[in-house]
Structure formats: C-alpha cells, structure tokens
C-alpha cells in the first residue's frame, strides 16, 4: 500500500441506537486489509467512543479514517457545544451525560480516557459554541 486509503462517514446525531455503524464499517474495512486483531480492536473502540460522544453531545458530525503504511489516523469533527474544560473531560469518571443516556449503559466518564488509552496519540481541538475536532493515531 502506498496511497493512503480514506474512509469518510457522516455520524447521524438523531439516531442513538444506530451509533456504531461507522466504527463497525471501519472494523470490516481494516479486517479486509489484513491488519492484526489487536490493532483493529484499538481503532474500533477509540472510534466507537468518539462516535458515541458525537451522538450524545454534538448532534452528530463526521468521521474520517486514513490508513497509510505507518499508521491509522482518525479525525472526528463536530459542530457541537465544544468542551469547556478538556482536562476535566479527560478524567476517568467525569461525565455530563443525562440520566437517559446513563440508562443505556453510557455516561461512565470513560469515553475520552478510552480513546486516549487505545491510541498512540490524541489531540482535542475545541472551541466552546463552535465545535470539537478530535484527532487520534494508531501507529502500525
């Protein structure tokens, strides 16, 4: 592989129960590329957490996954409310999810920490009132 492969997804903010479609598709695509199960697992979980965040907090957004020879880059972009305090949001257990979200099993305050845990680098670019772009990379 020399040219990077790019997969683009629109994440539907209205449809909470179908959240995970983009991550599931990425998992399939990475499997077809013959990547190791552990790499696929790390990318899938990091992306799913990001997808869930966009659905819960930002009314959806877009996800781009770029596969190149030396790594997989994931770019999640939304036009949601932004994150006022990134340091606080990165702490395990901190969550602003509502009770109805919690009743579905989310809102444990582990989303962003999991995204960091499963990727080799992660950057959050956020402006309150404008939106958030999360960029993650898994090295190959």
């Amino acid at each position: 592989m020399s040219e990077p492969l790019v997969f683009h997804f629109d994440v539907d903010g209205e449809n909470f129960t179908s959240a995970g479609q983009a991550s599931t598709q990425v998992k399939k695509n990475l499997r077809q590329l013959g990547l190791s199960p552990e790499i696929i697992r790390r990318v899938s979980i990091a992306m799913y957490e990001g997808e869930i965040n966009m659905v819960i907090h930002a009314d959806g957004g877009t996800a781009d996954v770029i596969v190149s020879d030396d790594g997989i880059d994931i770019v999640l972009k939304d036009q949601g409310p932004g994150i006022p305090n990134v340091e606080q949001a990165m702490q395990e257990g901190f969550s602003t999810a509502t009770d109805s979200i919690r009743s579905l099993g989310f809102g444990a305050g582990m989303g962003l920490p999991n995204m960091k845990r499963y990727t080799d680098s992660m950057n959050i670019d956020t402006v309150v009132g404008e939106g958030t772009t999360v960029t993650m990379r898994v090295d190959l």
Partner: protein
Amino acid sequence: MKVNELLSHGFESLSLPDGEREIDGVYIGDLLSWVMGRAQMDNAWITIMTNVNVIAVASLADTSCVILAEDVDMPEDLVQTAREKDVNILRSPDPIYETALRLAALIA
C-alpha cells in the same frame, strides 16, 4: 473452552454464529465504556444490559461471547442483529455472581 461447549452446562444459546470461538477469561460489567476500557479480547462478558449498544460493544471490543445473567430478556430483533454481526449471545438463569462461579469452574 469453546463458546458452544457452554450449552451442555446450563447456558442457553440466543445467538451462536461463531460457537467455535475460544473463551479466554471473563469480564463482568454493565457500563459500556468501562467494559470497552477493561475487557480483554476473547473474554466472556457477563452483563444484564440488553440494548443494541451491547452488541456493538461486544463486536468492537472483540469479546468471545456475551452472557446475559438472571435470564434477562433480549428482544428478538436484537438477537437477529447479533447473529448478523457475528456476536455470540448466551443466557444464564443465575445471578451474575453464580454465573461467574460456574464459568470459573468450567474454564479453569
């Protein structure tokens, strides 16, 4: 131990598209992000959650099977989704602790 071997030990099959899969360890939890952060690949995952996100988490976290404790009900359309997504789902009549004890004895 393989997932389908559990069927002869009091576990009921709801969805078993990949019964030959080996179980390596067990994880217990209902908070989905917690499970994604802590469960290991090939773990059997015991939970009482039965919404569609459980299927996504099991698939993406690559657990060997989901075991629903306490005979909790999973709607048929979700069971169908699990089959389509290659996610094994079993059910146990026992509470989580007793289910885990039985599993521990079997996979030891």
